[in-house]
Every structure is written in C-alpha cells, then in structure tokens.
C-alpha cells in the first residue's frame, strides 16, 4: 500500500511543497510518516471497500415492490471469523511497528546536547548549557541530537514541534524530556499543544535549525553570559549550600562531587539514581530523599528558589567531576 502512496507524496513534495504534509525535518519524522501513510492506506482501503459494497447492494437489492421482503441468508461462521481475524492481524502489525518506533524514540542518545525548557503562562523560557537564554525561540544545530529537559512553572503545557513529530507534556513539579535530531536547516513552528489558559494560542514560537558553524556563531554572538553551571555555582554559594555540602568527609551534608548519575541509598533503604528529578526533590523536599549517615537538618528551599535556578543548580551539580572539590577549595 505504502509503495503506491509514497511516490505520490514525494512527487507532490518536489513540486514545491505538499500542502497535505507538514515539513519533515528530523531523523524520526520520516519513520512516523511512513506509519502514517500505512494507516492512511488502511483507512482509505476499508472506507472505499465499505462504501462500494454499500452502494452496490443499495442498487442491486433495492426494493422493487412495496410488499417485498429480503431473502434470508444464513450466517457462515467462516465469514464472521474472517472479518474478526483479519482486523486483528492488522492491529497486531500496527501495534508492534508503532510501539517499536515509540520505544526507539523514547530514549535520547547518550551524546545528546541538553537544553532546558521552562513553560509558563504563556511563554517558553529556554536556556542552553553554555548560558544563552531564549524566549519562544529555540536555536539548534543541524545533525546533532538534542535533548530537552522540561518543566513548568504553573499549569500543564505541551512542547510540540510538528516538523520533528515530537510532542510531550510539560508538567509542573517534574521533569519530562524529549529529544530530536534535526536533519534540515530552516525555521519551524513550535506550539503549546496542551490547553493552558487564556493565551494558550499565543504560547507559540519558532525553532531555528542552523548549520553547525552558524550555530557556533549564534552561541558566541549576543551578550556574553556565564554558562548554566557557572550560574549554578554562584547560586550554590549564594544560598550557602557549600557550608554543609563542603565536599569533604567532615561536611554536615554529603559531598556532591561526582554524585550525578550514580545510584545512592536513601534513608528508606531504596536505591535511587541521582538524576535531575532527584536533585530537584532534594532541594525542595530534602527529608524525602534523606541519605543515611547524615542528620535531617537541611531546610527546604521551596518558595525561595524558582525553576530556572533549580535547573542551574542541577547543571552545576552535573558539572562536578568526582575529583573536583566544591567551591574552588
């Protein structure tokens, strides 16, 4: 079926843009489209089939005399089984294929560049690890996998780039993530796809996919800013975190050097991998992830620190290699 449809769409696309297809600009978009075409093919096939049969019967078996009744037919089991089993098989194939795609697209490559996103009514705040901040705009290099770590400051939003076929809700209180690898340079729509209040439809923006050199120039241009980790480091000393998390064994809090990505035991005996979410939780609700061997003395920073600052602190903690000492000591 696909074999029939795809050349047609490709032809249309070469004829100056296909009005029935959004731009396809990431490594996953073509595979999603392929599945979409198959599904469209199935839909068209069965719709045409049902419509033609109905029209044929309507004409062939129209009532000729007012008192005529239909001829009773008997129900062959084989027919019932056929139209139960064939749709089932189609569904199995669709499920396996779509799930395989979903699972594959669910995990960012380890080499991804990370960009942080905060949704708030009604705009997108983005920050690159190198420091530049953007509002409602996202600049990314072509050909590089990009992972977005996203959270919301208020209600549920949804980060949607149709050209990349990626979408994910952005929830308050937790981090969600998507990734994509742009394949074409250009400018693409960025939408909020989860209703978030009055100006939901204005929570839109643009994604600029640039060649690596242009991207480097863009990063270098503009105001000189500290990297996110540097900003985090400043917050770290501003909030006095280093007085307990001093990095040596005598500190009142555990050392944070090299802690990111490692499994750590919490007081409840659970073992949790230290990730963005856990660091966030440790800042806002310290006792819930309290580590054994330390006193429950860390106060909560909820209300004193915003989502952006938390992300900067996360970036700082991530930047700490195992051998480094805290606060330049």
């Amino acid at each position, binding site marked *: 079926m696909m074999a029939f449809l795809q050349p047609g769409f490709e032809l249309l696309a070469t004829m100056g843009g296909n009005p029935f297809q959004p731009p396809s600009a990431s490594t996953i978009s073509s595979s999603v489209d392929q599945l979409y075409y198959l599904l469209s093919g199935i839909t068209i096939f069965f719709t045409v089939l049902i419509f033609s049969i109905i029209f044929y019967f309507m004409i062939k078996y129209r009532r000729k005399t007012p008192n005529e009744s239909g001829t009773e037919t008997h129900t062959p089991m084989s027919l019932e089984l056929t139209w139960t089993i064939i749709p089932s098989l189609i569904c199995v194939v669709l499920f396996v294929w779509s799930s395989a795609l979903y699972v594959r697209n669910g995990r960012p490559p380890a080499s991804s560049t990370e960009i942080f996103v905060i949704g708030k009514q009604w705009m997108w705040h983005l920050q690159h690890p190198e420091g530049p901040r953007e509002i409602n705009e996202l600049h990314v290099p072509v050909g590089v996998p990009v992972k977005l770590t996203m959270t919301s400051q208020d209600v549920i939003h949804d980060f949607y780039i149709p050209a990349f076929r990626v979408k994910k809700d952005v929830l308050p209180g937790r981090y969600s993530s998507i990734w994509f690898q742009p394949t074409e340079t250009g400018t693409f729509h960025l939408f909020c796809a989860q209703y978030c209040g009055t100006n939901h439809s204005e929570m839109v923006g643009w994604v600029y996919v640039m060649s690596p050199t242009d991207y480097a120039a863009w990063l270098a241009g503009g105001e000189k800013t500290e990297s996110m980790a540097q900003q985090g480091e400043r917050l770290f000393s501003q909030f006095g975190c280093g007085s307990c998390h001093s990095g040596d064994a005598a500190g009142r809090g555990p050392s944070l050097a090299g802690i990111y990505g490692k499994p750590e035991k919490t007081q409840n005996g659970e073992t949790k991998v230290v990730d963005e979410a856990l660091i966030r939780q440790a800042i806002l609700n310290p006792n*819930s992830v309290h580590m054994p061997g330390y006193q429950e003395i860390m106060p909560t920073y909820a209300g004193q620190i915003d989502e952006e600052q938390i992300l900067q602190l996360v970036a700082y903690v991530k930047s700490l290699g195992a051998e480094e000492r805290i606060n330049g000591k």
Partner: protein
Amino acid sequence: MSELAHGAHPQGFAHQFEDMDQQRDAGRLGMWVFLVTEILFFGGMFTAYTIYRALHLPAFVQGSHQLIVKFGATNTAVLIFSSLTMALAIRSAQTGRKKGTIIFWLILTWLLGAAFIGIKLRFEWYRDYLEGLIPGVQWFYNGPHAPGVKMFMCFYFFMTGLHAIHMVVGLGILTVLVIMTARNKFSAEYYQPLEISGLYWHFVDIVWIFLFPLLYLIGGRY
C-alpha cells in the same frame, strides 16, 4: 402470567409489574446495581488513596499516627453490631413478628448508627479541629513530612466524610422504616423496603471495615 396482575392488588404492589415475585426481584437487583455504583464511587477515592500511599508511604504512616486507634476500633465494633441488629430487624419482619419487635431492632440500629457518628464527631473530628489537623480549615501540623501528612489527612476527611454522609442518609432511611413499620406497612409477605435498606446499611458497614485498617493502621503501631 400471573392471575394477580389485574385482580386484587396485594400490599405494596406496583402496577408495572406482573406479580410480587417480579417486583421483589427487580427491587433487589436494583439495590445491588446501586451498590455496585457505590463501590465505584468510593473506588475512585480508594484508587487515589492507594497511589498516594504508595508514593508517600512514610508520610502516610506519620499521618496515620495522628489518628486514635481506640476510637476507630470502637466504631468498627459499633457498626458491626448495628449490622447485626439490622439483620435481626429484617428477620423479625420475615418471620412475621409483632411490629414492636421490628421497631425495637430498627431503633437499636438507629442508635448504634448515631453513636458511630457521635464518636466520630466528638472524639475524632472535633479533636482534629482543636489540634489543627484539618487541611484547608484549621491546619497547624508542623512535624515531619508535613505535605504528605496533609495529603493523608485530606483523604482521611474525604473518605470518612463521605462515609459519614452515607451513614446520615442511612439514619434517615431507618427513620422512615420505623414510621412505615408503625403504620403496619410491612408483613411477612411484604417487607422489601426493609430488606433493600438493609443491603444499603450493610454496605456502609463494609466500607468502614476497609477504612479502619487503611486509615488507622498503616505501617503498624508498634
């Protein structure tokens, strides 16, 4: 088809039915279906409770320790006793006892139900109010796991509150049953309102049988 349908109408017979048996079956099935909706009604709350309990277990244990087991246990006993008296009220109607006997059991049931609510109000909710354990109304709790404890107390009040509303409705029904019995509405042949109200009363008892361990006894008391 029954000859009764258009002939003499027995006590409590409704026109849309063919005979008393059909009416009795319909009433009983109707009540059971209603109780199923009640299971799902409380079920939504139980689902939310189950998930939050799993996610915030230490806080829920802490929250549970704010409750007083002896009142929960007493109330469980009170309700079970009231279920027994309700069953006996129906049995005395079934076996054609004097209406005085039926009324005695019904009033005893009513009193036990009222005692349950009394204990709940006086020794539990009122105390919670004084100690500032009612989220959104009066909240002073400052101990460990404060957010989770607040969540637990929310569920405690919603679940016991919904249960108490069902109890109050039950007391209303019992009052009506007492009046109907006093007016000779029931007999050994026709006691269906008693029977299906009994189903409701026992259901409310069952809800409490689950609420007691789920709310009062999380993580043990050792």
